[in-house]
């Protein structure tokens, strides 16, 4: 056998057949050596021992507890922390990609400054390395000069991922107050999911995401919250799914609503694939059926005075005939809107058959406990506020608020006080400086902007160019956000960055960095200290801590420490405040003092035990609604009845202290909303159907969902992630555009062809995947790719979907309308 001979001669066949394997088989055996690509931090002498560090993941807001395995100075494995209540030893697909992020060969290696004064995609920044001390002084000199000139409002700090601004390791909010700028900080929540936050604020008074008791629910009705691909906490959702579908008795029934068939839709009992932007119409019809069929929860909602049911389609009622308990405005809502929202009507709007809508409503209305949940799929449209309010109203109708198997809101951790109180360090400028007269650059909170929104990062770039806020930013610092790529019509932000001094803190060479004047690279999440109160989970308080698994591979620094070092160099009491804070680890030690008074269920009562266990938590959630009565936990059970004013203060934080089908918050702002949107001031406070205003142009809806492998924006430069990024339709080297065969056939497009997706904003190219998974009126192309920077694998791979998504936002919630664009397709 010739083949055998030649191969054997190349290999050490005979020499090795005996014992070669045995030596290497020992776990933690001899090191491999040959660390060719990294610096001295990695070349630490290997003792063969494997160290396991307890920390938290950084690839989505859930922040799962992780164990990080390091041998001979190399991080080589990450698994879920079995003692962490979200992770429970498990992981989502992203968790195991963490080592690739740490060792990404395109990371910045240290601080740098730009030497090419020209900016643009085609202008090499010509960065030169500098020392950290010089970098801090450059920033401090700029900020001190602005303050001296009375122009401190012209400094902005933009941040992305963050559960509140605190989990940077240092609360970034006081910087604005001390230094004196309305633009410190501006978060990214309006390009995230503010649509749901504000919809909940308008109905139950809580401006927050919900916590969910999925495990005790028997029915889940999901609108555009992709539970098994993108909804958080993803890892725990997957664990929940295994339980509710494979072990729980009775098995939880799931109906899922979206615009194409994805994993959640496929795994659910029923998938309702509706026309984009019409989720609210479906929810209204379900509410209609719940009322006409008499399926609402009498304990929570109340009932007709005569005990009957008088809801009849199309007929108005006397509000005085109904006694409401914990809701407000039900009959008024019925009269103004709901009476006409029949399943037949909804069929015409959503394209879903009326009988399926009725079935879904009957199931949802008769199975308790039941939860209706929603996120971006439902609310990234001009009617997003109403879609969200209508869906959330279903929870009120079936009595799920604060109930076992229902939904509630997240409690915060028992933190100790920070090392210093910013209020003790306010000078005259901070208290009464000229900066106080200026609006935010994004016009959040302003009559001419988005008065009721929480943030408007997607408007800040355009406002910088137009001067609409009355001034322009001089200097802007970016932390975990890349608006030059990730905002609708990102070109505005790109141009805006040419008009300001840009400081980027990303460890990675993204678009914002390419346009930056100064690079202050952060550590990756496996190299830094940080705290993270939980994203809304199950309500009871939980705070996890991130600790470095390994010393930074390069000359990078944790952003929290960088901000403190800049703060120390600001003249006056601001500098004194930051000297008190000193560093992130010091702050974490102060926060942990709170655990001395309130030890966690896992025995965490100090900084050291927090670091050891990775999280502090304290069950149970303190409040519960049972059959229309609210109770507080008394240490043994939900035994302490709550009075109406307590419920209002702690749980239903609206004017009425009830769940409001007629929103008092919207009523207060009715004149402004009516003026800006043209809505009827008498009706705008109710959840209602409003046709979405689609942007773009063309015959197809353009939907750009998040996939499971988003990896906090870094997936596009991780080859091992790209290869499995879009598994349902085989997007292995880039995302593929899902196109229905009828559309493809009409345009002469075959599976695998390159196509143009175009509208009035421009065009992008993608590869077509002709598939029955997607509705005939929708083209689906997940966001992730199309970078013009970001690293060797990301650059020029795939299409940048947001370059053909217009900047239109919900005027009330501020939510960017990402999924509302129209396009047409043709063969490229």
């Amino acid at each position: 056998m010739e083949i055998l001979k030649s191969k054997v001669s190349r290999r050490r066949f005979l020499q090795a057949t005996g014992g070669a394997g045995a030596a290497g088989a020992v776990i933690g055996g001899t090191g491999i050596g040959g660390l060719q690509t990294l610096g001295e931090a990695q070349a630490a002498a290997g003792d063969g021992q494997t160290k396991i560090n307890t920390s938290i993941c950084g690839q989505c807001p859930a922040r799962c507890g992780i164990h990080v395995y390091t041998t001979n100075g190399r991080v080589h494995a990450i698994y879920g922390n079995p003692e962490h209540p979200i992770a429970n030893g498990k992981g989502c697909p992203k968790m195991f990609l963490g080592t690739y992020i740490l060792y990404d060969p395109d990371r910045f290696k240290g601080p740098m400054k730009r030497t090419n004064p020209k900016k643009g995609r085609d202008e090499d920044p010509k960065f030169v390395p500098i020392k950290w001390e010089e970098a801090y002084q450059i920033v401090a000199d700029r900020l001190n000069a602005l303050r001296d000139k009375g122009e401190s409002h012209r400094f902005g700090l933009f941040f992305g991922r963050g559960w509140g601004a605190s989990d940077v390791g240092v609360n970034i909010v006081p910087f604005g107050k001390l230094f004196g700028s309305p633009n410190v900080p501006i978060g990214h929540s309006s390009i995230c999911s503010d649509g749901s936050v504000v919809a909940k604020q308008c109905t139950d008074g809580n401006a927050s995401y919900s916590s969910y008791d999925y495990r005790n629910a028997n029915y889940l009705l999901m609108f555009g919250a992709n539970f098994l691909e993108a909804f958080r906490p993803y890892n725990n959702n997957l664990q929940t799914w295994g339980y509710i579908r494979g072990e729980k008795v009775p098995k939880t029934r799931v109906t899922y609503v979206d615009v194409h068939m994805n994993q959640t839709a496929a795994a659910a009992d029923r998938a309702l694939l509706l026309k984009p932007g019409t989720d609210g119409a479906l929810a209204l019809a379900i509410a209609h059926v719940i009322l006409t069929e008499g399926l609402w929860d009498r304990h929570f909602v109340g009932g007709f005075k005569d005990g009957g049911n008088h809801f009849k389609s199309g007929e108005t009622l006397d509000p005085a005939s109904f006694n409401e308990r914990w809701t407000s405005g039900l009959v008024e809502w019925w009269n103004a809107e709901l009476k006409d929202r029949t399943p037949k009507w909804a069929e015409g709007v959503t394209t879903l058959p009326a009988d399926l809508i009725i079935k879904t409503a009957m199931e949802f209305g008769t199975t308790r406990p039941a939860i209706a949940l929603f996120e971006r799929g439902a609310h990234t449209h001009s009617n997003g506020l109403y879609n969200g309010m209508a869906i959330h109203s279903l929870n009120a109708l079936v009595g799920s608020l604060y109930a076992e198997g229902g939904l509630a809101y997240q409690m915060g951790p028992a933190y100790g006080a920070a090392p210093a109180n910013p209020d003790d360090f306010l000078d005259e400028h901070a208290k009464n400086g000229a900066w106080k007269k200026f609006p935010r650059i994004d016009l959040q909170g302003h009559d001419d902007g988005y008065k009721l929104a929480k943030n408007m990062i997607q408007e800040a770039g355009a406002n910088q160019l137009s001067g609409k806020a009355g001034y322009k930013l001089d200097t802007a610092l970016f932390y975990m956000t890349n608006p030059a790529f990730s905002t609708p019509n990102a070109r505005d932000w790109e141009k805006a960055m040419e008009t300001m001094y840009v400081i980027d803190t990303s460890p990675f060479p993204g678009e914002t960095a390419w346009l930056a004047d100064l690079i202050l690279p952060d550590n990756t999440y496996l190299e830094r200290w940080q705290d993270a109160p939980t994203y809304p989970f199950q309500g009871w308080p939980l705070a996890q801590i991130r600790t470095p698994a390994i010393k930074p591979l390069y000359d990078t620094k944790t952003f929290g420490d960088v901000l403190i070092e800049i703060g120390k160099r600001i003249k006056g009491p601001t500098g004194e405040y930051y000297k008190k804070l000193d560093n992130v680890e010091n702050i974490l030690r102060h926060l942990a003092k709170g655990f001395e008074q309130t030890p966690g269920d896992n025995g965490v009562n100090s900084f050291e035990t927090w670091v050891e266990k990775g999280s502090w938590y304290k069950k149970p959630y303190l409040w519960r609604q049972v059959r229309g009565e609210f109770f507080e936990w008394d240490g043994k059970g939900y035994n302490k009845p709550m009075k109406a004013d307590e419920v209002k203060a702690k749980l239903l934080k609206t004017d009425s202290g009830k769940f409001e089908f007629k929103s008092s918050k919207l009523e207060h702002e009715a004149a402004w909303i009516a003026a800006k949107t043209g809505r009827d001031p008498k009706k705008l406070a109710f959840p209602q159907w409003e046709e979405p205003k689609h942007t773009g142009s063309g015959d197809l809806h353009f939907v750009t969902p998040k996939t499971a492998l988003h990896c906090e924006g870094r997936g596009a430069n991780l080859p091992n992630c790209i290869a499995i990024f879009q598994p349902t339709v085989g997007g292995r080297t880039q995302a593929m555009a899902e196109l229905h065969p009828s559309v493809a056939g009409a345009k002469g497009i075959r599976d695998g062809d390159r196509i143009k997706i175009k509208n009035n904003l421009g065009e992008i190219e993608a590869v077509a995947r002709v598939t029955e998974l997607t509705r005939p009126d929708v083209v689906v192309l997940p966001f992730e790719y199309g970078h013009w920077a970001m690293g060797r694998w990301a650059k020029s791979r795939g299409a940048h979907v947001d370059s053909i998504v217009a900047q239109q936002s919900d005027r009330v919630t501020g939510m960017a309308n990402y999924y509302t664009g129209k396009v047409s397709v043709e063969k490229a």
Partner: protein
Amino acid sequence: MAKWGMVIDLEKCTGCQACSTACQMENNRLPGENYQDVIYYTEGRQPTPSLKWFPRPCMHCEEPSCMHVCPTKATFKTEDGVVLIDWNKCIGCKYCMVACPYGVRFYTDEKALLEPNLKDVFKGEGELSWNPPYKGPQQDPAHGVGIQPAGVVSKCTFCYHKISKAPKGVPDLDEDVAELREFVPACVRCCAPKARYFGDLDNPASKVSRLISEKDGTRLLDHTGNKPQVYYLTGAGAAGSAVPSSRSTTSKA
């Protein structure tokens, strides 16, 4: 001696691919060459299309056709029932890849799925065909564990570097048992919906034996006579994840 086997509950599987990413982390896999994949199928037409998926590791067959065709006896069956490749003996002829009915074998020197090729970015030398900084410490060519030399075939080892260290006589390697956690294969340990179980098929008291018995565990392509040691539970009315069916996948536009 145990006969290690795996049970995958398709009623619980969410198709998330954590098994694939944990596998590539633990076994230093190149992009698109995970020892275990989740395969997706589309059937039916709008408005009632169906999407299904199927997780597929090496079946570690009792009668592995890959082993029988190997001209150098590089592929072998361990005493505890695992099919492995001795890279010191493998000549890269790929007969095994043709013989395997499940398509779960990989040749080291295939064209890279993605450029730049990671092998060029993290160059190796000697017996390591590449050497990424995140490489794990285990390197055991006689059992096909670690980074491959050039010119060999490799495959799922049931994370042999883990399970071979497990205490003898345990019926199951369950990640929820703290003392056993480090010995559980990566794809089982990571699985959030707990759709995977790993244990001794020869032990009638093991969880895997119980699940196969109670939930009618089935094997893929059983007619080939390979007798896989990976069993699937298809549940009653399992949606989403499923054994591939023969439903027509063609449709008229």
